[in-house]
């Protein structure tokens, strides 16, 4: 038995009792299976009703199953700060509880949550004329003194620690509060220090704004075992669309997605996917998940698929600039780039940078570090200083480089370079310049020096060639 009603309690049934034992005491016992979701739904409705009295209400009940800690399932923390007279708040809360037919409720008001919780166990100390019934008000600044006579069981200590404290003769909270904090920590560790803090009325618990911390998850049963990737991708695409919508509804972006596949033999396998940037865009998520699925060797056909966001960050949003000619949502741009990176590789989106290198290939580099410069420094209305316009003439031809220098055959004559052969095609050279010797990485003798040549082909192209160790290479061309 996890929880019992008042009527059952009167017949001697207590929480922790076995079902058979309880039925022995009450033959007409109606046992309901533990339903954490139903409990959470009921608690949510109570929380919503209590919000009428205070803007900060938190349910302290465990949402897990019977094995979880459920000591505070009937406790709601209500922020009383700044709401005026505390007695009126207590009356308001009791009125709401009566309206919801919650049965007898107790209200404790104190500076710290632990003292307020303890106050609900005490008989009302305030005369009924001054406070509503079932309400205990702890005067401000009197929490430690109020807690002192309570047993240490109120602190919900670990069994070993409780036994140790009991063996030392420490039975009340006041005795623990009287100890030196450093000594308690040195002897009993962090748990002892936490108990000592609670005994002194230092409690981090309390009401907070109601929020739903559950991360979105989508589960799909495929009906029949699936051995091909195509139907799985089809289902996954729809599931990711739902997942993305759930994330956006919560204002979140997924940093990590877990794909769980249930196999035909009853087992399940899981793989996580981390986009380069947190996103809720289903297209980007789908590209990553598909890439993960492509190289996933599965021993059995798949019967069900589950997708859940295991790690999220707040989604970014930025107000548009009405005066900007073309304003783009940085998160949308990043999502688009993330899709491209997910499919074409992390180096598929880049910005060019100048580098200080002797060789043509070292004169620049592709910067992959986007940081928050997705819009080229135009975020938050700040713009990079634009250098003044260069004179339009002369313009420079742009250098195009091959992925790596390509060895070529050359034909030399009395006038020097006459032709070179690239990709089985002979290019007749009508004019050339060079050599221009560059010693790249001269501290490495293995690289050797390069003699660069610029050659104009008969077809009009301007090629960049070099000779190194008597071997000729084509490195690029000007366009």
């Amino acid at each position, binding site marked *: 038995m996890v929880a019992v009603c008042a009527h059952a309690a009167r017949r001697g049934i207590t929480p922790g009792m076995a079902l058979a034992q309880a039925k022995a005491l009450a033959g007409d016992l109606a046992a309901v299976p533990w339903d954490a979701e139903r409990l959470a739904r009921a608690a949510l409705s109570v929380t919503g009703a209590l919000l009428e009295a205070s803007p900060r209400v938190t349910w302290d009940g465990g949402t897990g199953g019977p094995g979880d800690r459920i000591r505070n399932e009937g406790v709601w923390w209500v922020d009383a700060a700044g709401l005026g007279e505390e007695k009126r708040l207590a009356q308001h809360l009791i009125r709401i509880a009566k309206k919801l037919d919650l049965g007898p409720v107790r209200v404790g008001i104190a500076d710290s949550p632990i003292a307020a919780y303890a106050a609900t166990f005490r008989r009302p100390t305030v005369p009924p004329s001054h406070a509503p019934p079932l309400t205990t008000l702890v005067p401000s600044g009197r929490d430690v003194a109020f807690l002192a006579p309570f047993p240490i069981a109120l602190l919900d200590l670990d069994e070993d620690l409780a036994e140790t404290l009991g063996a030392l003769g420490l039975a009340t909270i006041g005795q623990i509060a009287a100890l030196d904090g450093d000594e308690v920590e040195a002897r009993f560790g962090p748990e002892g220090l936490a108990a000592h803090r609670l005994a002194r009325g230092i409690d981090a618990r309390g009401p907070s704004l109601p929020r739903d911390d559950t991360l979105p998850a989508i589960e799909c049963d495929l009906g029949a075992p699936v051995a091909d990737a195509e139907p799985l991708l089809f289902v996954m695409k729809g599931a990711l669309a739902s997942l993305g919508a759930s994330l956006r509804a919560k204002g979140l972006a997924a940093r990590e997605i877990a794909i769980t596949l249930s196999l035909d033999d009853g087992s399940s396998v899981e793989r996580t996917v981390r986009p380069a940037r947190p996103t809720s865009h289903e297209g980007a998520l789908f590209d990553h998940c598909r890439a993960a699925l492509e190289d996933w060797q599965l021993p059995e056909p798949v019967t069900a698929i589950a997708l859940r966001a295991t790690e999220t960050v707040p989604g970014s949003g930025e107000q548009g600039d009405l005066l900007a000619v073309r304003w783009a949502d940085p998160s949308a741009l990043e999502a688009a780039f993330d899709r491209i990176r997910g499919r074409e590789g992390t*180096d598929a989106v880049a910005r*060019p940078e100048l580098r200080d290198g002797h060789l043509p290939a070292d004169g620049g580099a592709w910067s992959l570090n986007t940081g928050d410069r997705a*819009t080229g420094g135009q975020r938050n209305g700040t713009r990079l200083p634009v250098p003044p316009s260069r004179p339009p003439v002369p313009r420079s031809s742009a250098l195009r480089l091959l992925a790596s220098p390509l060895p070529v055959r050359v034909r030399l004559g009395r006038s020097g370079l006459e032709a070179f052969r690239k990709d089985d095609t002979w290019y007749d050279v009508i004019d050339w310049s060079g050599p221009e010797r560059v010693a790249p990485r001269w501290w490495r003798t293995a690289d050797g020096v390069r003699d660069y040549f610029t050659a104009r082909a008969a077809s009009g192209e301007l090629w960049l060639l070099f000779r190194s160790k008597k071997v000729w290479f084509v490195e690029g061309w000007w366009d």
Partner: protein
Amino acid sequence: MAQPKLHVALPQQLERLIPARHRGLPFGIPELDALLPAGLPRGQITAVDAPLGSGGTALLLALAERTLRADEGVAFVDAARSLAPQAAAHLAALGTFWVIRPRGTESAWWCTDVVLRTGAFGLVIVDQAPAAARAVALRLQRLARDKNAVLVMRETAGRYAPVALRLSVTPCPSGFIPAVPGAGAAWPGPRTVRVQVEKGGAPRAGEVSVGLALPYRLRPHWAVRDRRPGASGRSLGGRGQRPRAGTPDWPERR
């Protein structure tokens, strides 16, 4: 009774009344802007037929620079992954300039689709991708129309693509200029590129001068001895250098 005066607005004056975001994109090159007074049309595909080494990249980067200075984003889809970063490094400081470098040329159209959909770019350049099928080109053209962007396809538009403007770029022959008149090494001189409008109005053509920047290395002189480690101590030679018997700078012909 005084008659009201009639003012005749010239086309150039009327053009000022059109918001900048609805005007075409100019090249920023006076010769080309005179050739295309309305600029490259927005929401349409512009095909640039510029063969390898014809100076097409220089023209497209000039167009990108002019667009960035007008506070619009530019995406350059480099399908062949051959653009040297130093050639476009000056554009990165001007604004939203991104280079998309897909793994294979066949992915260039998908990347273009994704980039166009963002709506963040006023100019999208697709360079050296395989020819687009008509259906693909139509879809991209509609995307460009929706986003009010200019889509430039270089050598990739395909014969049946819905192209509003087609430019043909051909290089004109040019020579080399000696570093020291009469002797010494030489370097390529500025060359002229001929741009012809083949579609999008009456056929017309213009010429643009394009130079060559070689800032990354010092130009040697024939009289300067090479004293660097590993060098032979001889002069580096070059075109126009005085012939030296017995000291061939070239490997023997096989």
